[in-house]
């Protein structure tokens, strides 16, 4: 009985994998047919084979390295700033229920604004270079991190704190062995959200106004109508983003377990 049901389940899982693979294959075949047979303009939809060749060429020649360095450097700086600021401020606010009630709605309201709107201001202040992207990325990713830090530290069960205190825990011990472990899962998911939006806003601001970086490269190729190469870069950036997000999710899952 149990055997047949696991067997069924395995067959079901295999079938859904097949559907997924089939779906992706169908998309690529349709793309190929549209580009080669159905006469869709090459400027709108390049041949997937040409895109693949370009991708191989980009990876082999290493011309992506400069732009990748710029983008990753901006990302690292922006994330470092927002983590430091968000966790510190979030912790300070979370120390008092009153401060939580004052600041949490404020942060939540600002979080609802699409901060990308302020990009023109950031460009005015910090120029077209990396500084404006770092500032924007840090500003956007600050809010999910701060909000989750407040929630994480703010909702630690009071009885844990009382119990630790009555057993004679010092401030440091309370922080290290009660508050941090209890708050960590929520804070970690805030960090993951912050990382994702920082990545998005940095690539986005590079697309909108910049001098270098992967987003800039894609726009540059679009403007010079090198479609196959542009598609190849899009695939490249999506792959990079997927890898980064997978790494961050992995780290988050690992941090949760400890």
């Amino acid at each position, binding site marked *: 009985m149990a055997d047949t049901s696991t067997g069924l389940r395995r067959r*079901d*899982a295999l*079938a*859904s994998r097949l*559907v*997924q693979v089939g*779906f*992706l294959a169908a998309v690529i075949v349709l793309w190929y047919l549209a580009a080669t047979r159905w006469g869709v303009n090459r*400027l*709108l939809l390049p041949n997937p084979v040409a895109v693949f060749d370009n991708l191989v060429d980009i990876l082999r020649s290493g011309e992506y390295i400069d732009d990748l360095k710029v983008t990753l450097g901006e990302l690292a700086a922006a994330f470092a700033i927002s983590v430091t600021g968000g966790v510190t401020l979030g912790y300070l606010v979370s120390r008092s229920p*009153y401060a939580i*009630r*004052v*600041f949490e*709605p*404020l942060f939540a*309201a600002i979080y*609802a*604004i*699409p901060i*990308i*709107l*302020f*990009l*023109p*201001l950031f*460009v*005015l*202040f910090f120029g077209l270079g990396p500084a404006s992207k770092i500032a924007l990325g840090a500003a956007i990713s600050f809010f999910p991190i701060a909000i989750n830090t407040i929630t994480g530290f703010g909702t630690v069960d009071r009885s844990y704190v009382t119990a630790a205190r009555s057993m004679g825990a010092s401030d440091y011990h309370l922080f290290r062995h009660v508050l941090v472990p209890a708050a960590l899962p929520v804070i970690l998911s805030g960090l993951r959200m912050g990382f994702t939006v920082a*990545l*998005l806003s940095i*690539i*986005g601001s590079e*697309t*909108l106004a910049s001098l270098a970086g*992967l*987003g800039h490269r*894609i*726009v540059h190729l*679009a*403007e010079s109508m090198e479609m196959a190469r*542009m598609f190849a*870069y*899009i695939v490249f*950036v*999506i792959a990079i*983003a*997927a890898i980064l*997000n997978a790494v961050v999710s992995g780290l988050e899952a690992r941090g949760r377990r400890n």
Partner: protein
Amino acid sequence: MNAPASPVVRYLARRPWAARLLVIAFLVGLWEIAARFVVDPLFLSPPSRVIASLGTVFATRGVPAALQLTLFELAVAFVLAVAIGLVLGLAVGLQPFVRRSFFPIVLLLYGMPQVTILPLFILFFGIGAASKIAFGVTHGVFPIIVTVVAGVQNLKPILLTSARSMGASRWQIFRYVIFPHMVPSFFTGMRLGMSGVLLGVLLAELYVSIAGIGYFTTLFTQNFDPTKLLGLIGVLAAMAIALNAVVRRAEAHFARWRAG
């Protein structure tokens, strides 16, 4: 902590919103001082002047039409995102096999940084409203699909079975079992979808625009006119906060029956 508090402190202690207003006033004050005495007036202008000149922003030829156009793009994109998201969400979520097959694909697409394909949208849909609407839809539709799928998934099978055993028709099951259960998560999806649509439309507007908000933010930036730029951005930000508050209310309202 328990020292005899002054009336002001006691007043504030009971009203966090008043303290919140004070914090906002303090920040605006900082901005005012920085803009008047520290920062070059070409780059930043004080809030007092921004507010005083809100009238001239709206009097600028084309700005009301641009706001209207952007609102129109937002509305169309939101309606399309909700309709498409609902249909796709139900199509993917209702059958376990379909869900296991296609939900990972949806999540994969949702996790993709869509800004990278923004230039493609302009190529496909032109530089007018269509590209903004399309980009707004692709940003808004995924959170809606995901929450609809999650909402349908939480449906207890026993409810479906009992409805069916009592002879409910397909439509009745949808109307009286599935639909009420979906409503709370549907509104969460609407809120997330709304912020997605806002993001998508504004990104496309800022990338290239001939008549919408993006055209004027570019114009004011290039003319080094921070007063008008801040006024325009401020109005849009206020709109975003208001929209979010409305959808949040609706979400809380429709989730009530569950809590009770």
